[in-house]
């Protein structure tokens, strides 16, 4: 009971934040009613997916301060579990998604347990390495389609198929992911004030102090890494049904891992709204830059140059991202 109450309790956010959040939520709920292009709809779905990736990353990367650059491997595990189970055994999304989550979480324990003996940059590099290895394995593994990947053929099912999550119109996908998005916010809102959330913030500050307060630092990190993984794997499963065509290159790439971390850091790592703000800025940038400058003007790769620029600006001026700037301004006003 207390858990549900705490998840719904946003009272420590200033009123202005809640007003803005409410308006944004309302906009998200009614957005499909207004006339929009298919491109805008696809961008919105991407925004929601990446917000969820970011929220997951934020638990370990933001609150825990462990820079994780290997989240894509769990996107892949979720996506492949759902796709393989649907194609081979006709298992619906709502069953394969939690199974994929279990696989991802088990994998995260196998990876996380030794990796969290490392600190700082070494940890970040090791997470990249494990992703690269897993991607290479999937690229030669015939059972999952190797480098060709897997394709979910939509003609086999009669849309709208709510069990298998096969739809013709994107608006269905939009509302499914929007539901997960709201649940994700409630979960993170609970998490940040839970015992584990507090422990992580203490670990981020000073591990010696955290230990002396009875916190099993290593185990707390491994547990949170699994939570982050569950988020990412869920969206991976959704990705499989939504895109219907998955290959190691787009579900497990280093680009995706970095984009997930970058988004949360740009918005504000370690804050509730940060990953959403980050996704809200970067995803439209990514889509439209690719579309206009990439495809139309011919500046291929311009989006990557802009990400690199953003990384440099954040790390030089405000490591706590956009939300860090907001908080700084507020504190200055108060004092």
């Amino acid at each position, binding site marked *: 009971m*207390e858990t549900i109450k*705490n998840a719904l309790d946003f009272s420590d956010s200033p009123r202005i934040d809640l007003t803005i959040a409410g308006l944004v939520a309302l906009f998200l709920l009614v957005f499909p009613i207004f006339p929009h292009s298919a491109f805008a709809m696809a961008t919105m779905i991407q925004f929601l997916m990446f917000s969820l990736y970011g929220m997951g990353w934020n638990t370990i990367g933001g609150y825990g301060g462990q820079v994780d650059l290997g989240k894509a491997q769990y996107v892949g595990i979720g996506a492949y579990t759902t796709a393989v189970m649907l194609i081979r055994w006709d298992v619906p999304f709502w069953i394969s998604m939690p199974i994929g989550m279990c696989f991802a979480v088990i994998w995260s324990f196998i990876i996380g347990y030794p990796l969290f003996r490392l600190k700082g940059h070494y940890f970040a590099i090791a997470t990249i390495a494990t992703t690269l290895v897993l991607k290479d394995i999937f690229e030669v593994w015939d059972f999952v389609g190797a480098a060709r990947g897997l394709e979910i053929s939509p003609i086999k099912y009669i849309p709208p198929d709510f069990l298998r999550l096969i739809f013709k119109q994107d608006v269905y996908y939009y509302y499914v992911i929007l539901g997960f998005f709201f649940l994700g916010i409630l979960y993170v809102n609970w998490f940040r*004030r*839970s*015992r584990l959330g*507090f*422990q992580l*913030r*203490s670990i*981020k*500050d*000073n591990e*010696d*102090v*955290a*230990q*002396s*307060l*009875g*916190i*099993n*630092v290593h185990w707390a990190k491994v547990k949170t890494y699994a939570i982050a993984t569950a988020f990412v794997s869920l969206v991976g499963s959704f990705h499989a049904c939504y895109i219907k065509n998955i290959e190691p290159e787009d579900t497990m790439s280093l680009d995706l891992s970095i984009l997930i971390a970058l988004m949360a850091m740009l918005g504000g790592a*370690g804050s509730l709204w940060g990953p959403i703000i980050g996704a809200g800025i970067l995803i439209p940038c990514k889509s439209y830059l690719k579309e206009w400058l990439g495809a139309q003007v011919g500046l291929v790769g311009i989006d990557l140059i802009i990400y690199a620029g953003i990384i440099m600006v954040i790390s030089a001026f405000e490591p706590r991202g956009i939300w860090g700037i907001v908080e700084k301004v507020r504190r200055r006003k108060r004092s």
Partner: protein
Amino acid sequence: MALLEIHGLIKDFGGLRANDDISITMERGELVGLIGPNGAGKTTLFNCVSGLHPVTSGRVMFDGQDITDLKAHEVARLGLARTFQVYVASGDLNVEENVMVGCFMRTRSPSRARARANEILKDLNLHDVSEFRVSELTVAAQKRVTMATALGSDPKLLLLDEVAAGLNPSEIEEIMADIRHVHEDMGVTVMLIEHVMELVMKVSDRVIVLDSGKKIAEGDPETIVEDPRVIKAYLGERYVREHGGDIG
């Protein structure tokens, strides 16, 4: 049965022996001061006892249990809390939340942790600043917050590492009152490392002196200040020869 027993504790860092055959026994309810010149091995001893450093040899018993090989978080859960000398507390958490981290050792429920944190903050007269970030406070208040955080875990034994360093006289008075309150009213056994002699001499039941990793003297505050070995450790051999041990 003694609360804390340290038997022949040795700690080497490479070729440097930081703690050399130290044995200390502390009874429940005592307040012991641990003094010694810089580099005497006081903080190292705290680190070994609290499980942060593995010891080279020797045993540490706490509350009847051998804690020598336990990890720091396991030692903490048995009821041995400590503060750190250099600790700029969280940029992320405010005062109340800092103390809550300590309280979470004994409860899972955020509301119970918050309630307990507020009790402690009231007890130590810190409730006025509970909404502030620790970095916004004075050094004195920061030190008291680290004490409050350690108390959040309801310890049996509290190790305080230089809580009065860098404070002005009135702040020292305040923190002295806090230490007495923790010791007498809350019933916590306390060992404190301190360079501020005025504080050590006033509050301690017993003082232990370390020098170059060895325990050189132990006794009540009045006799300790007159012990030639202690004066030698602080002021040098020549001083003792010339003044005959009288530091008046």
